[in-house]
């Protein structure tokens, strides 16, 4: 049994009270004295040359304080890609400048080319309308294959729309081709991983401030990683020294990847604040969010699976086109490559993997990591083609997967895609999935559905992902321009309570509850006496923030290391108080005691002694009790899972309903099962949304047709079922002190292929030889497929 509020306890979240009573403090809730508003002028065309911007009339409008155009930022840096990817021939990727405001050309609908600073938002909007702008429209580049074939370039100066042409693992290319050529059976599938808009419910918001007396800048912003944002602004864009820039991300209303990145609006409000000596605020509306938040997925893939006569997997080969949009967002180059290609061996002992991925510029919003980031794309391709292969060779899809699974005694396992998996037990996950989903009862449920005139399908999926991002040495070799450690400071206050400053950022994950559980467990004290400080670069150590399911595995490990240092120092202080050798002092449940005696002091007494160091070995031990640790992981962590779902399809309308959804995951050790389960629920909701309803659509002119909640289908409560979530079959992560793997993205990785596999199973049960339907499987698409099928 876990200790009360210790590791493993389903402690309710302390942050809930402020959110449930309207006392949260999101960026847009902040109102500074004398603040003014930034409003952006955004391109209404996808591709155009800015011939002229006449600001005279707008500048004379009531309340207008300043107008910025791209001209004002030509001398500052661009917003960089965080990862250098080389093409197969060794050429570095094409990296056109991403300016604060568009200059010369606009490259997607929503691209900001000017900003008006006014006393009020309404005055700013009026003035934007009064800008006299001459933009010569050109044909838009939207379709990726057309983009590569043509000579109409998103960035004229690079003379191509191909960012890079990446091969992984290039040395395996010939062998993979050979294996596929000689294979007993090859299954081929062409598929689309549909473009999604992350849609955190809180729109982005940035507030810039500048103090002319000190030269200090402050940026309050909707960020998942305030230190990364500060680093990008300081080192690349505006050149503000890091010590003169504080970035604060207060309560943040969801991120899902879209708030990892630095955006031009953040630089603009800082520059405007300095120019005007006023606090400058910008809050995105939902339409702007659709047009300018980094989108997700958008791959077009051909995958082949080669099998021998016994059904053993011989090779996976994929050819993928990945849309990066009009500019490279910060993680846009790593997401389709090292977070995708390296997972293309899946859970399997397959000996050969080759991935060719072409990243393509188009006149659309930038595309970057969205919940799962590359791993959902890998899992979707693999688990769809495996299901198709099973059907083609007449094998049960679960048995075929099991036959090719890595077995528990094979760890550590070097995958054919270049990763070393440290632990896992995929058969145990599959066993548990079959049990808790009542797979045995499926036939009866199918019969019942059929009696109502509905088709019922059962779909399955196995996944492994890489998270806890990431070992700095390894990612440095692979092209990362940053390290990916994290950091924590554990400050024991004189009266025995604690403030723990962490580099991770919580925007729904419950860090304020979970990190104290870990420290409380280690120190044997009440979790209520421990508070977490996060999201403010002036208060926390330099950490890399929250994405890639990394907060617990990386920052949590830093918390453990810092707490261990606190215990080590406190033990020395206790030894002095107890007149013993430190080696003779034990620490258990908040009490230091001398072995074999009844002499002891409490943690609180030691804390007080550290800050009131009278009768203290001041020549041997510094006063105070505060320790910082940076933790750099030795490897990725490898969560895995077995999912299944049952769908009902109405053959009259093509409407798909997910009736049952089961997720069995191996997250390693679980700190708070309530929160972990909630994370899986959220991922499932987004994954089912991708599979059934969500679609981002640009027309041929580059107009975003799905730019509001009236056009983009967000999953509603009545689109989704109750889920069965199980994490009982865990294997421990072998290389971090918590044994934890990370749970934030699993649901969004495992669920889309599960749903599609179930729909295909339903189609087949209805006698329709349908082998694939692209996501989202809307009633129209399913109905059309059924009516076109033999």
């Amino acid at each position, binding site marked *: 049994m876990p200790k009360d509020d210790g590791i493993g306890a389903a402690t*309710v979240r302390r*942050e*809930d009270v402020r959110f*449930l*009573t*309207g006392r949260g403090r999101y960026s847009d809730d902040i109102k500074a004295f004398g603040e003014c508003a930034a409003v952006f002028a955004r391109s209404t065309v996808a591709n155009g040359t800015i011939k002229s911007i006449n600001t005279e009339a707008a500048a004379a409008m009531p309340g207008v304080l300043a107008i910025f155009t791209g001209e004002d930022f030509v001398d500052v840096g661009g917003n960089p890609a965080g990862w250098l990817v080389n093409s197969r021939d060794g050429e570095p990727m094409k990296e056109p400048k991403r300016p604060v405001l568009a200059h010369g050309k606009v490259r997607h609908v929503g691209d900001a080319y000017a900003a008006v600073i006014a006393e009020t938002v309404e005055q700013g909007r009026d003035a934007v309308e009064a800008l006299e702008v001459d933009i010569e429209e050109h044909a838009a580049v939207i379709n990726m294959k057309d983009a590569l074939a043509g000579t109409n370039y998103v960035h004229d100066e690079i003379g191509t729309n191909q960012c890079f042409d990446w091969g992984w693992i290039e040395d395996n290319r010939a062998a993979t081709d050979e294996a596929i050529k000689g294979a007993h059976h090859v299954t081929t599938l062409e598929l689309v991983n549909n473009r999604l808009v992350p849609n955190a419910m*809180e729109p982005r918001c940035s507030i810039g401030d500048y103090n002319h007396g000190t030269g200090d800048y402050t940026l309050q912003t909707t960020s998942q990683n305030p230190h990364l944002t500060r680093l990008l602004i300081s080192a690349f864009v505006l050149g503000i020294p890091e010590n003169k820039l504080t970035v604060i991300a207060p309560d943040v209303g969801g991120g899902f990847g879209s708030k990892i990145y630095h955006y031009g609006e953040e630089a603009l409000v800082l520059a405007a604040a300095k120019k005007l000596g006023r606090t400058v605020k910008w809050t995105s509306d939902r339409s702007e969010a659709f047009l300018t938040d980094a989108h997700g997925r958008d791959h077009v893939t051909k995958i082949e699976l080669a099998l021998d006569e016994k059904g053993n997997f011989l090779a996976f080969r994929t050819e993928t086109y990945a849309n990066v949009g009009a500019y490279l967002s910060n993680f846009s180059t790593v997401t389709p490559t090292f977070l995708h290609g390296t997972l293309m061996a899946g859970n399997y002992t397959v000996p050969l993997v080759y991935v060719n991925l072409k990243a393509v510029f188009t006149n659309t919003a930038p595309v970057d990591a969205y919940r799962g980031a590359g791993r959902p794309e890998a899992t979707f391709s693999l688990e769809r083609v495996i299901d198709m292969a099973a059907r083609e060779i007449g094998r049960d899809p679960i048995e075929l997967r099991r036959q090719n699974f890595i077995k528990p005694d094979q760890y550590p396992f070097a995958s054919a895609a270049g990763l070393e998996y440290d632990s896992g037990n995929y058969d145990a996950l599959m066993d548990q999935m079959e049990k808790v989903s009542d797979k045995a009862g499926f036939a009866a449920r199918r019969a019942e559905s059929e009696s109502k005139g509905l088709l019922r399908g059962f779909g399955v999926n196995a996944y492994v992902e890489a998270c806890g991002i990431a070992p700095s040495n390894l990612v440095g070799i692979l092209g990362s321009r940053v390290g990916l450690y994290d950091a924590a400071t554990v400050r024991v206050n004189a009266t025995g309570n604690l403030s723990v400053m962490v580099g991770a950022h919580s925007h729904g994950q419950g860090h304020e509850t979970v990190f104290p559980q870990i420290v409380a467990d280690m120190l044997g004290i009440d979790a209520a006496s421990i508070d977490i400080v996060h999201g403010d670069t002036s208060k926390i150590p330099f950490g890399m923030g929250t994405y890639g399911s990394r907060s617990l595995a990386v920052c949590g490990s830093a918390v453990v290391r810092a707490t261990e240092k606190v215990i080590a120092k406190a033990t020395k202080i206790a030894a002095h108080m107890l007149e013993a050798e430190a080696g003779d002092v034990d620490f258990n449940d908040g009490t230091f005691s001398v072995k074999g005696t009844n002499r002891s002091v409490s943690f609180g007494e030691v804390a007080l002694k550290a800050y009131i160091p009278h009768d203290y070995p001041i020549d041997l031990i510094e006063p105070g009790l505060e320790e910082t640790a940076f933790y750099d992981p030795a490897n990725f962590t490898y969560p895995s899972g077995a999912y299944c779902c049952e769908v009902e399809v109405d053959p009259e309308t093509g409407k798909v309903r997910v009736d049952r959804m089961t997720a069995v995951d191996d997250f390693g050790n679980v700190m708070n099962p309530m929160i972990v389960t909630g994370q899986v629920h959220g991922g499932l909701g987004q994954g089912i949304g991708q599979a059934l309803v969500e679609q981002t659509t640009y027309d041929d002119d580059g107009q975003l047709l799905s730019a509001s909640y009236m056009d983009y289908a967000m999953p*509603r*409560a009545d689109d989704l079922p109750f889920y069965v979530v199980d994490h009982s079959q865990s294997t421990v992560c072998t290389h971090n002190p918590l044994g934890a793997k990370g749970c934030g993205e699993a649901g969004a990785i495992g669920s889309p292929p599960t749903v599609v596999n179930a729909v295909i199973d339903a189609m087949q049960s209805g006698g329709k030889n349908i082998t694939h339907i692209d996501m989202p499987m809307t009633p129209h698409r399913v109905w059309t497929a059924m009516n076109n099928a033999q």
Partner: protein
Amino acid sequence: MTTVTMTVNGKPVSENVEGRTLLSTLLRDDLRLTGTHIGCDTSQCGACVVHVNGEAVKSCTMFAIEADGAEVSTIEGQANADGSLNVIQQAFQDHHGLQCGFCTPGMVMTTASLLKENPKPTEAEVRTYLEGNICRCTGYHNIVKAIMAASGQDVSAIAAE
């Protein structure tokens, strides 16, 4: 500018507003009741739901002057008199019915309205009633569960923690 007078969370207030001022703007900017959130521009997301004369209303879709003379209650006025969480709020905490918290005020206000109309809703009734409230974090499982628990129903058979 027009002067509007109303009762907000039991307290009389009077403010000068423009004709175009939305009720949500009055609440957030003038009264600094920032628990009411703005998540979209098309009256879809439901983060701004408040009660006007006891009815759930999307405050981004109502002019402040339309609420002249009304009794308005917001998320800030929902806790018990002693400051403790009310039954709905407590159920959301107990069942982990929120994550980032941004949609939560609207969810709580909509739930209050639902349970007034339908004290013991079924799962399907809860899901249908929430069609005007979008959550991106929870996949709705724990929201539906929390609402059913708040209505006094036994939710122990609903899967997971």
